[in-house]
């Protein structure tokens, strides 16, 4: 009888422990449902769409890997991918350098540091489509500012948006203008969180400003820089509004990023399957990039230890 009573008590105790352990998971259920609804379901549906053919706006059924074959055989797709990579390399590297420089300047106790900070982050607060309109007006020949400025300085009017290379560089300038503040903010936060002991010790030991920066500040800042670069890269892949307003991907295909081409393919040409095949390929590339970044960060941390 005593043994049976113990068993019943043990069972009850086990059930109580199980219930206690289950509560956190139950509380997570709403978040998981929300995440599945807004993130997981669209991704799964996107994969499904990439394996289907659409004709006359209707899903005509499973088509295997045909969309991927068509996309990988499309020269315009590869050109758009190449342009996207060039755009990201140019913008993210310039933004990181400028953001770092600005953060180093503002991190010092300047008199108007607060005002400078606010002024610097203003471009980031403007909607990208508005940024596109502003710069289209600035670049516009005749009514804009850029061409008359060049002419006043004795140069030929560049007609920025009318030539492939200048249009591409024009877009880079717009992106740098808008997103350098983001890099600046992240790096500035990173600079403020750095331990001061090693830097002060270096100064006491007679290291000059350059030596302190390159041997102490920069290595300590590396994880922050990596996070900033990864975040900005992911964001830059989705650049759309400014390009759509400024060039629509032209002249020719000189500024056609993959986001513009995928958008046109889905919503202008009604080829949802192909557009999804493009975007899934892009997602795969991004996941690889992120995995490489995480690996690099872990290795950096291990080396630092």
């Amino acid at each position, binding site marked *: 009888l005593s043994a049976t009573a113990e068993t019943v008590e043990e069972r009850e105790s086990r059930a109580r422990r199980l219930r206690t352990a289950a509560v956190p998971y139950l509380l997570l259920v709403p978040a998981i449902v929300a995440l599945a609804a807004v993130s997981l379901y669209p991704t799964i549906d996107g994969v499904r769409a990439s394996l289907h053919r659409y004709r006359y706006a209707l899903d005509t059924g499973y088509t295997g890997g045909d969309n991927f074959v068509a996309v990988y055989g499309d020269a315009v797709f590869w050109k758009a991918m190449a342009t996207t990579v060039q755009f990201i390399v140019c913008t993210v590297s310039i933004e990181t350098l400028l953001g770092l420089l600005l953060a180093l300047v503002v991190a010092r106790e300047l008199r108007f540091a607060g005002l400078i900070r606010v002024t610097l982050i203003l471009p980031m607060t403007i909607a990208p489509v508005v940024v596109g309109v502003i710069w289209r007006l600035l670049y516009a020949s005749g009514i804009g500012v850029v061409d008359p400025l060049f002419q006043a300085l004795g140069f030929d009017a560049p007609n920025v948006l009318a*030539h492939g290379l200048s249009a591409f560089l024009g877009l880079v300038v717009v992106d740098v203008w808008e997103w350098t503040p983001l890099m600046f903010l992240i790096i500035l936060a990173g600079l403020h969180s750095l331990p001061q002991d090693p830097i002060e010790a270096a100064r006491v030991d007679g290291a000059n400003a350059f030596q302190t920066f390159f041997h102490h500040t920069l290595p300590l800042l590396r994880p922050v820089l990596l996070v900033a670069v990864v975040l900005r890269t992911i964001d830059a892949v989705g650049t759309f509004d400014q390009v759509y307003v400024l*060039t629509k991907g032209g002249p020719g295909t000189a500024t056609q990023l993959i986001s513009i081409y995928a958008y046109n393919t889905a919503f202008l*040409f009604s080829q949802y399957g192909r557009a999804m095949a493009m975007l899934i390929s892009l997602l795969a590339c991004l996941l690889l990039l992120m995995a490489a970044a995480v690996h690099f960060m872990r290795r950096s941390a291990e080396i630092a230890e």
Partner: protein
Amino acid sequence: MTEGQANQSTTRERKMSDKNAKTPKLLKQPLGRRDVIKRGLAGTVALAGAATVLSPRRSYASGAITIGSFQDNAMAPFRDYFVKEFTKETGIAVNYNETNYDTWYQNCKNDGLNKTGAYDIYVMDDNWVPEFAAAKIVQSLDQLGFKANQDILPKGLEMGLWPPKSGARMKDFASATPELYSIVIIDDVEILYYNADHFPSAPETWDDIFKVAQTTKAPDMYGWSPRGLKGNAIVQTYLPLLNSYGANFVNEDWTPGFAEKAGVAALSRLFSFIPYFPEGAAAFDTAEETQVMLEGKCTALTEYTGLVNRVDDPASSKVVGKINMATTPKQEKHGPAIGTFIASIASGAKNTEGALQFLQWFTSSKVQLEFARKFGGAAVTGSALTDAEAAGKHRWLPAIADSINNSVQKPRTPDEPKMEDILGTHLNMALVEAIAAKANYDAIAQAHLQAAAGEITDYLKQQGGYF
């Protein structure tokens, strides 16, 4: 504590005690986790149920109709005046919703595919008709018993037919009888705008425009202002030339006609105006193209009818009363591009009768005459566009009528946007190259048109249903 305060306190305590006495047993029990979850779920379900029951619902009982449209200045009289007039005359209320072009295209497509019934009438661009009719996103007006007004100009009316009455047809619809799926509501078409200071009378041919262009001196005056931006923009510049040289965008067998001799000659003619273009024309869209004319800095351009009101508006124009209109110039023939505003009844429309009544009413000769006389709008009926009183007030109306009658439609297929994108990309590349080279126009035109033709043919073969 005063006596009164003591009494109040006692009363409060008594009330609380009474409350406790009346408190159900359920509320006295300690709450467990399971209870919290159960009651939370029950509460959520109850709230959701209440929200569903109590939420405002649209009512169709009164015979209201809902019209959806994209935003465009040309729609202003329709939206602000005629919709209200219809309600006054019939008692049928009209809910009018508009959004930007791209969003509206997706919204109405989804609404029609899923038969949601959020809208009764879609205002559409005419190049949506092939896709919307083929996918039954919209209903056949013929099958609904709609009787098209015989006064509507035939070229405008044809834009609502699927499959098309003339031109290349997709194989799936080769033998089908054309049915009216959409009815034209604004006859938008490309017309020639020319500065009367430079042309004593309406120029008839491209040569007439060219002769005057040669007399202009940049940057004070340009001979031609084009839309050169890639895609739809530059295609709109090229089409009146292409059509006037007697070439087709595509031939009856879907082979690209623009790459033939006449198409190349048309593009070379466009390039011959390069010395008289404003700087940066290869990046021009409508805003930049028309700004040059409104500033009084170009002698001529081709554009849709949306510009007619702006040229005489002192707030935006330095050439008030100086710009006249005519049909686009000819080489072999006149060939303006047509791009009508067109309306259909949604597949899931909840008030089909009301929608039919509205379309019949708005396209009637009486209402169209008012549209032309009062607003100078691109009416769809011949009687309105040629009405002496309307033309006296709005000098562009006869040019619109003439242009509609001479207009040439683009290929009628759901793949037309992709075809236009390919052609428009190559035209833009050719223009950039020609501007830089300032010579070899024929060779540049030939090379890029051939490349575009090859890409379009490959794409159509991949899509199937053409060859």
